[in-house]
């Protein structure tokens, strides 16, 4: 009996020694934090946590978009960890976690947060802040520390013209925002030539409309009006007064939320009737219709993504590329779990999710956690997620695979009308006049 107990004690002691000896082997990579060092004799893959860092606008003027993008990122991380089984690199499995700090929608906060993430937290993969302005503030810092930064809410082309190597883009660049709408008009009414452009005087809108103007002129449109209004404007009457006199066929314009609503409201007040209107950002949100009622009928907007788009494994197969990430139904289900609300995900959520997925996909392709190797791998990848195609221009990091969709408010619901492949309704053209809308006419087929 005594012998038996002695043997048991001895075996435990040996086992303890063996474990102690193994310890140093488990810590050759100091940066990613270890959560469960399960080194077992059967060579089960090691599970570690990989942090993706993000400055998120949880307060301040971008708090809405910031919250949405964070939920999107967390949904993607949840999918990677729970459905996909983590990111596999060699013999290791990485669980993804989003490490974020509130940037208060404030440009001055950004560089400090990126620095903190890169230096103190040792994060190698950043998700850029929301908006072009904040992304522009973040990019030089990420570049300085040689960490990758993925823009999911900074559309401005300008960011990618600065020669940054570590900055890549997931969403369509600003230059593509209004060209799809013009292409659609050209297809359905070749006689509509006179285009008026009226937009917010910000970096984002300027790059959208610079590209739109080039596209319009190259495609036989005549730009009859091209003027900006300042940020935070309360009355657009003077500029709309001038626009009215140019007698345009179509109007493209806008900037962000408040001015987009204001523009629609005042076009209605001044009874400026045209055949089609496309406004940036604002109409893509459900509150737009709540705020404007029937005035919103027939108004179009470009959108990065919309619930109901037809991207999925089938579509990817047709294009001969991988599908990576949750399907749309899975995404909606996970989103509900993560956000804990019944609110539908906006495109900001899909963008955030796609950025996280692109990192995971690229890391698996590169089989490395070195930012440089992952960036190199990104040059050659092309895949589809629920958000659409992901492919970057190797030189600038600008997104070239993803396509914008165009939505139109038809009978109180948002319909996808362009491109034809993604559409769930035909364009309503020409749109009802403001007077007709006042009488209750809807832009419904």
């Amino acid at each position, binding site marked *: 009996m005594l012998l038996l107990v002695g043997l048991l004690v001895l075996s435990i002691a040996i086992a303890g020694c063996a474990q102690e000896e193994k310890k140093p082997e488990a810590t050759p990579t100091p940066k990613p934090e270890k959560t469960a060092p399960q080194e077992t004799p059967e060579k089960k893959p090691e599970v570690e946590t990989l942090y993706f860092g993000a400055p998120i606008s949880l307060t*301040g003027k971008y708090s809405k978009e910031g919250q949405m993008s964070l939920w999107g990122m967390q949904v993607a991380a949840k999918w990677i960890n729970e459905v996909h089984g983590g990111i596999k690199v060699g013999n290791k499995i990485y669980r993804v976690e989003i490490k974020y700090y509130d940037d208060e929608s404030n440009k001055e906060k950004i560089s400090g947060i990126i620095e903190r993430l890169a230096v103190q937290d040792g994060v190698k993969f950043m998700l850029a802040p929301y908006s072009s302005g904040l992304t522009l503030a973040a990019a030089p810092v990420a570049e300085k520390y040689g960490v990758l930064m993925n823009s999911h809410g900074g559309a401005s082309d300008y960011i990618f013209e600065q020669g940054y190597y570590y900055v890549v883009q997931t969403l369509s660049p600003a230059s593509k925002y209004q060209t799809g709408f013009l292409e659609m008009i050209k297809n359905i009414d070749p006689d509509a030539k006179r285009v008026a452009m009226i937009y917010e005087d910000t970096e984002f809108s300027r790059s959208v409309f610079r590209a739109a103007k080039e596209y319009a002129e190259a495609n036989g449109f005549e730009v009859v009006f091209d003027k900006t209004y300042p940020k935070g404007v309360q*009355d657009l009457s003077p500029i709309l007064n001038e626009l009215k006199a140019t007698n345009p066929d179509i109007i493209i314009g806008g900037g962000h*939320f408040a001015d987009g609503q204001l523009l629609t409201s005042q076009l209605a007040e001044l009874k400026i009737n045209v055949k089609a209107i496309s406004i940036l950002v604002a109409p893509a949100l459900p509150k737009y219709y709540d705020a404007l009622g029937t005035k919103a009928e027939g108004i179009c907007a470009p959108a990065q993504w919309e619930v109901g788009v037809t991207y999925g494994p089938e579509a990817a197969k047709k294009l001969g590329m991988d599908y990576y990430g949750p399907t749309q139904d899975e995404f909606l289900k996970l989103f509900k779990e993560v956000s804990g609300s019944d609110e539908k995900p906006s495109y900001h959520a899909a963008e955030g999710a796609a950025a996280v997925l692109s990192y995971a996909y690229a890391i698996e392709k590169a089989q490395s956690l070195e930012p440089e190797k992952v960036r190199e791998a990104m040059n050659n990848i092309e895949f589809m997620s629920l958000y659409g195609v992901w492919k970057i221009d190797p030189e600038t990091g600008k997104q070239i695979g993803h396509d914008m969709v165009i939505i139109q408010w038809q009978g109180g619901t948002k319909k996808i009308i362009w491109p034809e492949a993604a559409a769930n309704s035909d364009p309503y053209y020409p749109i009802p006049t403001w007077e007709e809308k006042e009488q209750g006419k809807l832009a419904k087929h």
Partner: protein
Amino acid sequence: MVVPEHLVSNLFYGALLGSVYGVATMGLSLIFGVLRIVNVGHGAFIMLGAFTAFWMFTLYSVIPILSIPIALIFGLALGFVIFYSTIKRLIDAPELSTLLATFAIGIFIEEVAKFVWGSDYVGFSWNIGTLYLGPITVPYTKLLAFVCSAAIAGLLYIWFTRTKLGTAIRAVVEDREGAMVCGINVGRIYSVSFAIGIGLTVLSGVLVTLFVPVGINVYMGPDYTLKGFVIAVLGGLGSPWGAFIAGFLFGLFENGSYTILGMIPGVEPFALTRFVAFVFLLIILLLKPTGLLGGE
């Protein structure tokens, strides 16, 4: 030639907008005049007024005109609460303390509002027809905003000049110690003036929604705060009536200058309208450093 037509209509729109600016600044001016406190959180109270109009309309179908007295009462109550909880302790405190306190109150209100209402851009549609008058196309709601603004400014003027309390407030503005010697309860005047100032500001939020019924958001305030400061200085800080006239002129200049600037080739007129309005401010201050209706 369309230029004269544009000028006429733009001046008209400018006058309407200016009257709303005016009422939106009167509260700021009154509080400064009586308490010598610059309310940096001014815009947050305008936001509260805009949301009052929005919720009354969406939840109870109360038209914005009827929301005006509701907003005034709400603002008065809020003003008393803030006065007795914070401002009272700060009356003779250094300027920086009052600046920080009002700044903090503004942020607090915005963030509580965001917590309760969310950060969506909301709006409502109250359609009562449109007036067509030559080159001018204007919805009646905007005309109503103008009429209400002018009426409120007028009523306030009468109240200040014809009532005992109004006269007492003016006495405190002119000479605090002198008023005290005459037996005026200065402490009470402080609380009443602060409450009226906040009440007016919240009320002006309703007028703002009559003018622009969309884009209502918890962070809409700061744009109005900035313009409010300019207009208050222009009108002579501490003179609510001056603030109203200055607001009116500011609106005229902002919109009117658009037409003239638009005739210069290669110029983005809208970007310059504010510049012109600020130059106008500078000129007035050069000529009369105390503002339009400011004292010596």
